[in-house]
């Protein structure tokens, strides 16, 4: 009886701990990939288009995405993302979105889940110095939402 209670208590405690966000500095990259969800939960692909448009991701500035063709002016600095969900595993995509430089050495793609190591970090787009600690470009939740969306981009 006692044992069961203890196990139950442990499970209850462990529950929220598992769902806790992994902080940018604690992310473990294996060959550029991140195995498990940064939030402990699956992302919601429906939130991704807003993030990838002029939102915090601004992915469309550099990438064309056919599925988002209602958004104007897709860039061509990076490869089109069509079929990304077939080319890469979820863990690889999570790694690319969080810090593409772990997969593509020296990439021009910004690191979206990183908050240190910058040269003259600014206060957003004001041109002024950052006033406090730098927040990552995307939250853990936003990274997961974008990854969930990328996984839907399959080759036909």
């Amino acid at each position, binding site marked *: 009886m006692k044992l069961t209670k203890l196990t139950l208590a442990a499970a209850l405690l462990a529950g929220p701990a598992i769902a806790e966000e992994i902080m940018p500095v604690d992310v473990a990259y294996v060959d550029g990939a991140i195995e498990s969800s940064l939030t402990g939960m699956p992302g919601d692909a429906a939130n991704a288009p807003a993030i990838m448009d002029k939102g915090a991701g601004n992915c469309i500035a550099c990438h064309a995405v056919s599925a988002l063709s209602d958004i104007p002016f897709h*860039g061509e600095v990076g490869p*089109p993302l069509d079929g990304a969900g077939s080319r890469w595993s979820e863990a690889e995509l999570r790694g690319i979105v969080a810090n593409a430089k772990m997969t593509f050495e020296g990439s021009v793609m*910004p690191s979206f889940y990183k908050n240190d190591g*910058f040269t*003259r970090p*600014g206060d957003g*787009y004001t041109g002024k110095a950052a006033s406090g600690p730098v927040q990552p470009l995307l939250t853990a939740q936003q990274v997961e939402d974008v990854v969930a969306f990328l996984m839907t981009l399959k080759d036909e």
Partner: protein
Amino acid sequence: MKKRTATTSLTWLALASVSLAAPAFADEDAALVVNGEIEMVTETEAPAHLDGALSTIRSGWTFRTSETQALQMDDFDNPAMVFVDQAAEAWNTADGSEGKSCASCHEGAETMTGLRASMPKWNEAAGEVWTMEMYINDCREKRMGAEPWGWKAQPMLNMTALIGAQSRGLPMNVAIDGPVQETWEKGKEIYYTRYGQLELSCANCHEDNYDNYIRADHLSQGQTNGFPVYRLKQANLIAVHNRFKGCIRDTMAETYSEGSPEFVALELYVASRGNGLTVETPAVRN
């Protein structure tokens, strides 16, 4: 992992051309002849110091739409010319405690021909690299007894446009060695530094990605041979340090300020990347 970079790049290069609805391309082979007489070099072999980083250098004019390009082909259409005219007036107007104008010492503005093509350059007396703005303010303070102009002040923008325009059609030829070398090296270092939270260097956009679209913007090589340029968006002349500031700000970085030693060094380095392109001041941009 590096292997992947190569393969992906190849795939997307092939894909990139089919999937994009981009704004109307300008005719890349169009020639820029201003007023039917000043023949511009808008594309030429890259200077040797670029060491293969670029094989050809291209004026920002070649990246603009045909509508914007046309505005630069005739002074009657070039919206910057009203500012040049204002400066021509200021040139002859006495200012400051000495009661002198630019013309008192320099006669006509055409005596400035060739200057812009070698700017920024070493100033022996000051022992540092000087830009056009610094020369202008030196005259105002020391010889005219007048207040210096701010780098973004309208009379300063106008005057740099007037003086620059005297060199239209002459090839950029800034010195990079001798006393300026140290400053040039510093500028080069800044050019390749990945600033801000987006970790982007000038080279990431203007060397690695020129001719690509970033959102709706057609990336040029970021050449400075047309500065100060008239920007349709701002309906005004824009000084080169102001442009640098905007570009660094867009990397989510703390910028340097107009006239800072960093931007003077960067101006020299970027100008040297355009050695061989002709001065187009005042160019027109969107």
